[in-house]
């Protein structure tokens, strides 16, 4: 009985993993199949031209700008907020409410964040349509993800570590950055990678706040177009799926590079603690 059940469950596990991998291969395969033909040195490193034949360098640069700025702002705020909720705040109704609200906000469609950003950052704070306005909007979008995943990984740090450290007369803060955060690092990192994905994949919130200017941004106060917005525009208006897929290929490579970098950095951080 149990054995049969085990076999079925194991079969399901394999099947689920197979499905996931198959979907992964199909999607990435499709994007490469459609897009690889357009990929060339000029396509990646050339400047953009609206009349065709240009490259997407400005979008690559803009994309990197938005990732870096949003994460630079969201990572510390998100992690520290999670630390507050998990380690400092008295667990109770208020914290649970905050947690609940945070979770619920992950479901708000990004276009609403975009409209909010357009009203608040672009118009009210007079940042104009700019990379910085978009990054601030993205910060709000990824905060819940960072907070929740960080909280979860903090929860998994054994209490004995906290006790062991505090019993040595260290402060909460010292315990936090010497013992707790390093132990929680893998979980925090995977949250950051997810957030990075969310930032990279975002379009609606960005084109309402950063706009779609297809030129090399002069500064973070310039209006600009990210890779994803580019692929969104070419699908929506021109129906140019090859071009959208080619942008997708570049994005996938970019994500790969960023993920590897993140993993590398976390390994370095871990080493530093040994």
């Amino acid at each position: 009985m149990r054995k049969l059940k085990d076999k079925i469950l194991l079969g399901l596990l394999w099947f689920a993993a197979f499905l996931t991998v198959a979907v992964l291969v199909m999607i990435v395969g499709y994007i490469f199949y459609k897009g690889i033909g357009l990929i060339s040195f000029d396509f990646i490193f050339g400047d953009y031209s609206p009349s065709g034949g240009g490259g997407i360098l400005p979008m690559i640069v803009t994309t990197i700008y938005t990732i870096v700025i949003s994460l630079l702002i969201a990572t510390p705020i998100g992690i520290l907020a999670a630390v507050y909720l998990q380690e400092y705040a008295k667990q109770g109704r208020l914290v649970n409410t905050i947690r609940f609200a945070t979770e619920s906000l992950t479901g708000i469609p990004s276009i609403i964040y975009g409209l909010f950003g357009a009203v608040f950052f672009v118009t009210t704070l007079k940042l104009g349509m700019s990379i910085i306005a978009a990054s601030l909007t993205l910060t709000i979008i990824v905060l819940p993800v960072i907070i929740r995943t960080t909280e979860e990984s903090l929860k998994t740090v054994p209490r004995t570590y906290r006790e062991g450290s505090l019993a040595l007369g260290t402060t909460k803060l010292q315990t936090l950055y010497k013992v707790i955060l390093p132990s929680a690092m893998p979980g925090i990192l995977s949250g950051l990678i997810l957030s990075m994905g969310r930032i990279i994949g975002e379009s609606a919130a960005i084109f309402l706040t950063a706009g779609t200017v297809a030129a090399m941004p002069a500064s973070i106060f310039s209006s600009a177009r990210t890779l994803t917005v580019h692929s969104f525009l070419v699908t929506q208006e021109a129906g140019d799926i090859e071009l959208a897929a080619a942008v997708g290929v570049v994005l996938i490579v970019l994500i790969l590079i960023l993920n590897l970098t993140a993993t590398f950095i976390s390994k370095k951080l871990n080493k530093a603690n040994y």
Partner: protein
Amino acid sequence: MSSIPVKKDAGEIGKANKRKYILEKVSGRVFLFCALLSVVSLLLIIGFVFYKGSHPFIAEGYSFIDFLLGSDWVPSEDKFGILPMIVASIYATIGALIIGVPIGLFTAIFLAEIAPRSVAKIISPAVQLLAGIPSVLYGVFGLAIIVPFLQNNLGLIKGQSLIAVIIVLAIMMLPTVVTVAETAIRAVPKAYREGSLALGVSPIGTIFKVVVPAAKSGIMTAIVLGMGRAIGETMAVILVAGNSLVIPTSLTDSIRPLTTNIALEMGYAFGTHQEMLFATGIVLFSFILILNFVLARISSKGGN
């Protein structure tokens, strides 16, 4: 014996530690500030949506009941009824959860517990990669592969349908569910596994009866975040939903979920029409609140 001598200056804090306490206090404040910052930004957004979305009902005399239960949505004729979209959103979300959550969780379990390290080391980052692919491309993939596939194999006149939305959303929530759940499962102490295995329980039994329940809280987070992704997704859904304004009666009907309604028309909407789109956002938000509430209930029930 009865009275213990206490020094007068006892309450004083040593000089050496003064700095530490100040730092401690300051850092506590900084953490609190960060938490508040997130809360404030979240409140701002909620406030913004509610402010915009409640205007037609408060100031312009529209009936909220008609809005919720009306089935005609013709903005140019001042008809704003979102019942078909509410129904569509409920079906699509539940459908995506039913397909996406088990596959995602099982994949996470597979990666954390069954797969050889070397295999997991390749697949896990690859799945995370999926999280970063723009939703537009999922939509294009859905439109170019899934929609025709459904159309041809189910003998439909159009593949843009509830089932297409469910499939695309299920795929899109996979990376979140898998990544978060995998981390949670990996964090379960080895002692639990050993304890169960030593009782002669099979590895699979151990996984489902001890490891997964021990990782429950993280798994719930995975589901909630994945669900958030599914509910909040627009760009991919627009392409495969068909966006027809009918109340779906079968899996093959075209649907227009609440989110796509907002994204689809926001670009051209103004005045009352735009405010009604924000009102759609309020309904969506309430919908998410209810779902999260239900999930939280389920998870605390499972805790006993």
